[in-house]
């Protein structure tokens, strides 16, 4: 395969920042000597450049702001207390903030019917991540690089309605670490959470969420 054949499909991913460091450096090296890719990049760049402005036009709704502040304040309180089993550092609040902002941007861009929200994961699982694809009242939670649970334990999804947590489906991840769960009646929920529970699922979560998706 020629150098050009290997790199010509990377133009879009490069403009969207979706290449990892190695891929980006390789593409930039190729770009310096490839007139065709330079032209393609210049041609598509206006479309990518137009993307950031599309998010900034919107003010987050009050409910989202309130949810964010609640998280930040809860984290602040936790740091003042002696270390408890489920203490999470303030950094998680910052990640949640990013998740909310990103989620909001994506939500706005996606229109009313279908939207995609990025999941925020506990820092104990640095490789893990995922999204919630919402289509009306139904949604699909997709997670990657989740640790395989040992013993008779499963992951369980919860739907948050204010302070109330409603148990939803349980799921397992195999050696691949990927999990995919279809959810119903998410249109009224404020957030989707995942915890680790005993097989069969629980009625009340036994730990703080390790995955959070604000809605």
């Amino acid at each position, binding site marked *: 395969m020629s150098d050009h054949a290997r790199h010509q499909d*990377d133009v879009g*991913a490069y403009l*969207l920042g979706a290449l990892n460091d190695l891929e980006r450096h390789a593409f930039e090296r190729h770009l310096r000597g490839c007139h065709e890719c330079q032209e393609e990049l210049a*041609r598509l760049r206006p*479309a990518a450049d*137009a993307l950031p402005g599309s998010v900034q036009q919107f003010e987050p709704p009050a409910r989202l702001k309130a949810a964010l502040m609640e998280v930040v304040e809860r984290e602040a309180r936790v740091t003042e207390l002696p270390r408890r089993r489920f203490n999470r550092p303030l950094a998680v609040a910052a990640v949640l903030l990013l998740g909310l902002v990103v989620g909001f941007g994506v939500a*706005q861009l996606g229109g009313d019917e279908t939207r*995609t929200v990025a999941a925020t994961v506990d820092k104990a699982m640095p490789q893990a*991540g995922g999204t919630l694809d919402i289509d009306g009242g139904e949604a699909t939670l997709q997670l990657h690089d989740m640790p395989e649970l040992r013993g008779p334990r499963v992951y369980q999804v919860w739907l948050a309605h204010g302070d109330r947590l409603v148990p939803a489906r349980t799921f397992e991840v195999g050696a691949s670490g990927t999990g995919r769960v279809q959810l119903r009646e998410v249109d009224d929920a404020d957030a989707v959470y995942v915890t680790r529970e005993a097989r069969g699922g629980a009625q009340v979560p036994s730990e703080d969420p390790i995955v959070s998706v604000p809605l």
Partner: protein
Amino acid sequence: VRGALNTLPDEQRQTIELAYFGGFTQNEIAKLLEEPLGTVKGRMRLGLEKMRRQLVEGVA
């Protein structure tokens, strides 16, 4: 621009959103969506191409 993004087929729009707003790499997106890497690359490029056409037409 928001209009342009919303007119894309769902899979192109979702891929661009995950990359640009979600900060996922093309490999992560391929894993998430369980699609071949080449498909993900193609969606990003085709999506941008379609948005570019709409921008040009909007100006003209």
